[in-house]
């Protein structure tokens, strides 16, 4: 069974500082990986996704993530955070089921706090 681990429950970063959120996955085949963000009281918004090809993927809001197969990781990064980045971040993995639906398996989330 696939699984996702986000080792950091909370992270506090100063505004303007760089950010890295960790994500490790377990999946038997080539994974499909996603990062979502959830602002308070909102649904989830997709930040970026990795299916294949270039292992460094760019997303919205200045975020990027790097897929490292050897480490089973898909860490999210941003060079300079803004106060509006304070939110809950979820890493998720999915497998390809031959064209059928496939639910996502989510990590438990990392709560990002931005210090002024």
């Amino acid at each position, binding site marked *: 069974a696939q699984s996702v681990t986000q080792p950091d*429950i909370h992270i506090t970063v100063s505004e303007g500082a760089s950010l890295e959120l960790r994500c490790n996955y377990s999946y038997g085949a080539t994974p*499909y990986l*996603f990062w*979502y963000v959830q602002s308070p*009281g*909102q*649904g*989830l*918004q*997709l930040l970026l*996704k990795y*299916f294949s090809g270039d292992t460094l993927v760019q997303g919205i809001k200045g975020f990027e993530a790097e897929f490292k197969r050897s480490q089973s990781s898909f860490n999210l990064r941003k060079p300079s955070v803004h106060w509006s980045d304070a939110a809950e971040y*979820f890493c*998720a993995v*999915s497998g*390809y089921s031959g*064209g*059928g*639906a*496939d*639910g*996502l*398996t*989510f*990590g*438990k*989330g990392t709560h990002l706090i931005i210090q002024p």
Partner: protein
Amino acid sequence: DVKVTQSSRYLVKRTGEKVFLECVQDMDHENMFWYRQDPGLGLRLIYFSYDVKMKEKGDIPEGYSVSREKKERFSLILESASTNQTSMYLCASSFQGRGIYEQYFGPGTRLTVT
């Protein structure tokens, strides 16, 4: 823009009541999903559907059922609500085909069972 809407943002029900949560998407997506979100547990898949009248159990289907009579609408049913079903419920939808498509989420329904 893809739009996934959920019938209520907040809902309060009594133990034993039958509860319906409705989800509608406007992008002609084949796949629809129901998740519940709890602090410290992340999101967990309850049920999903890949076609009208088709459904598959997710990781935590106990105590829930679903209905998909039309492509754009996916309902989650709590036959007899219990306090341990107090949670945030999120609906999502996606395209289907040769590959994996991202899921688009609704704003969520926060259900409290008293």
